[in-house]
């Protein structure tokens, strides 16, 4: 049996839905953040699989840029989380009801 691009797209869809489910189900801000990373990875996988399917390298370049943006996003997000944690001593998003520091 040959593995086609559709198999990778299906796997990417499953991983994306798991990530979205983690975003909706969990209350720990760190786990929610990791769910975002999982969703980004799932979409990257579809980019690479489709790029191979149509014989185009631009999909891989797009993945490269997504990785750069995700790295920058993680740095800022974790810094925000640490500064919130210093004030509130909690990583649960239920405790964050106001933006004021």
């Amino acid at each position, binding site marked *: *049996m*040959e*593995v086609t691009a*559709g198999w990778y797209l*299906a*796997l990417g*869809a*499953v*991983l*994306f*839905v*798991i*990530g*979205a*489910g983690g975003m*909706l*189900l*969990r*209350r*720990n801000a*760190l*786990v929610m953040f*990791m769910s975002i*990373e*999982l969703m980004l*990875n799932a979409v*990257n*996988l579809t980019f*690479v699989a*489709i*790029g*191979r*399917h*149509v*014989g*185009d*390298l*631009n999909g*891989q*370049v797009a*993945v*490269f840029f997504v*990785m*750069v943006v*995700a*790295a*920058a996003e*993680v*740095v*800022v997000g974790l*810094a925000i989380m*640490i*500064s919130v*944690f*210093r*004030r509130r001593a909690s*990583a*649960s998003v*239920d405790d964050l009801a106001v933006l004021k*520091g």
Partner: protein
Amino acid sequence: MVELVLFIVFGLIAVAGALSMVLHPNPVYGALGLMATMLSIAVFYVVNSGHFIAAVQVVVYAGAVMTLFLFVIMLIGVDRAENLEERLPMQRQLAIGLGVAFLVLIGLIGGNAWITAPASASEPNGSVEAIADLIFTDWLLPFEVTTLLLIIASVGAVALAQFSPRRRGGAEE
């Protein structure tokens, strides 16, 4: 045949890692599960002839990003059990139901709208040279903008991290 075996083995590892990330109450185990998912996705990149992208995936995601996550998890709250009681009514059932519905929707749309490969489609060459060739010609401006983005992100992280909690109520800098 090799690709089928690789797909089944690493696909199972990827889904199991993702599920353990979502379901395990301890975020450290979750981060390790996510790391397993990212490494198996790197294997899929290699299979799909994205060799450079696979190396970047291992170095940036599995290496740098997840290490940063583990640092912050250790710093913030491994010892603190998450309060799993739900405050919104029906949130859990709705989330699971809508997730399954979303997956079915993706399956329906993806099953119907399928792009056919051009007849001349060949395996793309995902080497460093080929990717650099594209980045430094067609994608030069986005590449330069990412340098700006990285500088802003690192400056922002430093500015957020040196926030001092002593000045409560005063002007914050």
